[in-house]
């Protein structure tokens, strides 16, 4: 039994600091991009996320990547 695992989609998420809550803890807002090529490298995504973040008002807290894989029994 051979199990294959194929990357089928990638999502880029930019997490922004979006003010503070009532107790002074930072709050965050996530902006997701779904139409990201699965073959994208971390360097490419980092470049895109940091350049995009310079166009808006909030501090970019983290850049995240979500990859989805389909696992199948061949």
């Amino acid at each position: 039994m051979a199990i294959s695992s194929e990357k089928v989609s990638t999502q880029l998420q930019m997490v922004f600091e979006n003010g503070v809550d009532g107790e002074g803890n930072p709050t965050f807002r996530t902006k997701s991009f779904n139409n990201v090529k699965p073959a994208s490298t971390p360097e490419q995504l980092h470049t895109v996320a940091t350049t995009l973040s310079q166009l808006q008002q909030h501090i970019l807290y983290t850049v995240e990547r979500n990859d989805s894989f389909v696992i199948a029994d061949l």
Partner: protein
Amino acid sequence: MKKLELKFLNEEGRTVTISLDEPIEPADPVAINAAMDAILAENCFYSSGGDLVEKKEARIVERNVFDVEL
């Protein structure tokens, strides 16, 4: 709430929009151009009509909501 919309053309000549909330104002054409160039250079987005190949336009859009008394 305002949005910055970056519009590109894909290989089929159709428009693909990448939008960001709460843009810096006034818009800086140099920075926006540079960001759009970087997106094209990195080429890590796709669309149903192929890769993004060209910058089309950029604009800031504001949505106003007024409740109507019923």
